């Protein structure tokens, strides 16, 4: 095994070794049991007292939703105003201007919904103020929103609950104080000691060895990069994201950032098992997700390590693999692992440029975002998976002629309607967006926008089509990575992806919350011989089949026109 592949295996095993105890810890926090961070309780009490919140008041699922949507609306308005006004706000040493209305609309939504699609470059399109007070703040709270929503669903899955599902503010604040903030602090310290900048000094200038004058963008990067990964956000400080040498200086920081982004999504799967005391069920979910991850990872690593066949024909040596858009200090194997992890989990940070990846890799990244629940983003990954569980329970119930029950509650028409709508929403918003943009490229090529549709695509043919498919898939999956060659800094992309992002965020939170709330209110039926077992590998296979059919096959025609066609044309 060469050192590049052993690095990938080590990174995954390290993640797992940390995620299991973290899962147990998260379950303890939300069960209200003792943990070693209990000394933070006074801080939480202060926050609640300051905000006038009674954190002990039980809420039903609708009240949870109202609280979640209200505070998210506050953040949206706050972010939009700050981004427009950033040129006049403090902490702007590089004197960058405010964002245009459509860019600010897109950016505010993007960070609110944990997507972090960036239609600007951090070096010139944001200030230290907006990086910290808008982006980093939203990194924390958007991740906490997803996790809090998931905890509501966990609670609703318990045996003996009705409509008392705990307090949203309690879940939300504890996610910040007990999980995100302490771990971010540790990560940021590791990053800082590996050379990532932390000071508020602005651009520097020096004269290079050859005598060129060079300006260097810097900034207080480490604090943001820690939560950017831990919260599966992905919005980077610099334009090149974690491919940038300051945002990801070496193999230690690269491993840290990879572990950080995978940590909570995996931990939450185990937290589910510990919280509900159904460990076998958690293992089934973990098994399905891990097999899914490997199915995407192996072809991607294979394609990247083999290199670009078109460049092989020119006779140069691709011993390490395909290098376009990649950094030497990470290498193609690790870049392949990162691009799969960042797309199955909704991080969307990159350490190599996805646009330049092999077509097979691009195909797997797209599939990762189309499925969007193999581990998935902070909280929302399991919420997406929950929808597929409901559908799988219903279908298997019909197949074997048993009443579809899930954890002692009957799944009926109403729950199935919600689950189907949410499952179909994802392909719908992606493919409709793609259809509109394709139409515009062909029929409105000269439209007078900041970037004319005729110059949107950085690459001709199938790859250009993939660039548009990727943009909408990334928006709908709240991923945020891009085939960055796409000329997306104009009103068309800002508005359409903004709408796709907001639909792709809140409906998949509302749906599972509603289903879980409705189920919790139903009569509890104790398990009997007629109950469909949900903690078996047979059921795991069933979930997997549902995911493949709904999430992957509905995109097959679009994938065939994009990366698959490019794969077969590349010789």
């Amino acid at each position, binding site marked *: 095994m060469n*050192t*590049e592949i*052993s690095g990938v295996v080590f990174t995954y095993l390290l993640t797992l070794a940390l995620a299991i105890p973290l899962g147990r810890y998260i379950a303890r926090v939300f069960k209200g049991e003792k943990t070693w961070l209990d000394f933070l309780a006074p801080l939480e009490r202060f*926050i609640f007292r*300051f905000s*006038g919140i009674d954190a002990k008041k039980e809420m039903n699922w609708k009240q949870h939703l109202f609280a979640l949507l209200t*505070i998210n609306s*506050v953040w949206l308005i706050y972010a939009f105003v700050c981004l427009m006004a950033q040129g006049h706000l403090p902490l702007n040493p590089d004197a960058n201007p405010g964002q245009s209305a459509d860019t600010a609309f897109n950016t505010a939504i993007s960070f609110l919904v944990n997507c972090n699609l960036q239609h600007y470059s951090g*070096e010139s399109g944001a200030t230290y103020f907006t990086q910290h*007070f808008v982006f980093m703040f939203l990194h*924390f*709270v958007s991740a906490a929103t997803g996790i809090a929503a998931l905890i509501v669903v966990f609670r609703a899955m318990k045996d003996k609950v009705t409509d008392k599902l705990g307090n949203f503010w309690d879940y939300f604040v504890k996610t910040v104080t007990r999980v995100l*903030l302490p771990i971010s602090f540790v990560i*940021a*310290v590791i990053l800082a000691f590996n*050379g990532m*900048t*932390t*000071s*508020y000094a602005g651009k*520097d200038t*020096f004269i290079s*060895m*050859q005598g*060129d004058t*060079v*300006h*260097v*963008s810097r900034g*207080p990067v480490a*604090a943001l990069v820690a939560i950017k990964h831990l919260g599966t956000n992905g919005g980077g400080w*610099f334009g*090149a994201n974690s*491919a*940038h*040498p300051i945002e990801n200086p070496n*193999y230690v920081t*690269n*491993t840290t950032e990879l572990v950080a982004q995978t940590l909570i999504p995996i931990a939450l799967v185990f937290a589910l098992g510990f919280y509900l005391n159904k460990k076998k069920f958690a293992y089934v979910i973990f098994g399905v997700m891990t097999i899914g991850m490997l199915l995407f990872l192996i072809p991607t690593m294979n394609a990247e390590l083999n290199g670009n066949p078109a460049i092989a024909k*020119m*006779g*140069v*040596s*691709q011993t*390490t693999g395909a290098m*376009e*858009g*990649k*950094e*030497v*200090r990470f290498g193609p194997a*690790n870049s392949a692992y990162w691009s799969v992890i960042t797309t199955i989990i909704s991080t969307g940070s990159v350490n190599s440029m996805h646009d*330049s*990846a092999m077509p097979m890799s691009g195909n797997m990244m797209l599939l990762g975002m189309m499925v969007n629940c193999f581990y998935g983003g902070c909280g929302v990954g399991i919420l997406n998976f929950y929808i597929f569980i409901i559908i799988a329970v219903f279908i298997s119930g019909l197949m074997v002629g048993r009443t579809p029950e899930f954890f002692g509650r009957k799944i009926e028409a109403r729950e199935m309607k919600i689950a189907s709508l949410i499952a179909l929403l994802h392909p719908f918003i992606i493919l409709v967006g793609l259809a509109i943009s394709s139409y515009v490229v062909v029929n409105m090529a000269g439209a007078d926008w900041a970037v004319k549709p005729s110059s949107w695509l*950085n*690459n001709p043919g199938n790859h*250009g089509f993939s660039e548009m498919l990727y943009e909408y898939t990334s928006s709908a999956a709240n991923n945020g990575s891009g*085939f*960055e*060659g796409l000329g997306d800094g104009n009103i068309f992309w800002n508005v359409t992806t903004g709408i796709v992002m907001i639909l792709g965020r809140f409906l998949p939170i509302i749906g599972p919350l509603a289903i879980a709330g409705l189920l919790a209110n139903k009569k509890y039926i104790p398990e009997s011989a007629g109950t469909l077992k949900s903690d078996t590998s047979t059921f795991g296979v069933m979930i997997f089949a549902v995911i493949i059919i709904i999430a992957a096959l509905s995109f097959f025609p679009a994938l065939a026109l994009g990366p698959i066609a490019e794969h077969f044309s590349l010789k």
Partner: protein
Amino acid sequence: MKTYLLPSLKLTLILIVILAGIYPLAIAGVGKLTPGHGDGETLSYKGRVVGYALEGQKFTKDEYFWGRPSAVDYNAAGSGGSNKGPSNPDYLKDVEKRIEDFLKHNPGVTRAQIPAELVTASGSGLDPDISAAGAQVQVARVAKARGLSADQLTKLVNEHTEKPLLGLFGPSKVNVLKLNIALEELKK
């Protein structure tokens, strides 16, 4: 809605203070204790700062080791890759041109000796590193341009080849700026 609006506003305010104010200031404090004092580590030659240890810079003269092609021309006030797809015909022409250019400056080198990273653009446009093979293939050119022996330079490259992490994980690499500073210091 009103039941939730006031708590939302207040909670937002207090969390902004903690998460965007106190937390990064604490990290900035820790950063002061690091080798680069949180400003980024710089490298000097003859008492003058000639670059950042982490960021690549442009080397085009024959007497220096070259780094990778950069889509942003090593302008560190920005960053980015070429975003060219692997099948793009214009991109493939660019790569072919870079190969021919490299062969012209490095007579005696064959195509099969050129590692791909020397003719493909990096992700950030600021990649500070090349592979050991990428440095060795330039030894003959640099030695000739500087009137040094190839053996001496091969040794220098070997000294500057950084092994994988703990010898086990990740690629090995050569930091081009550090190598070129050491190269200048050889002459003394």
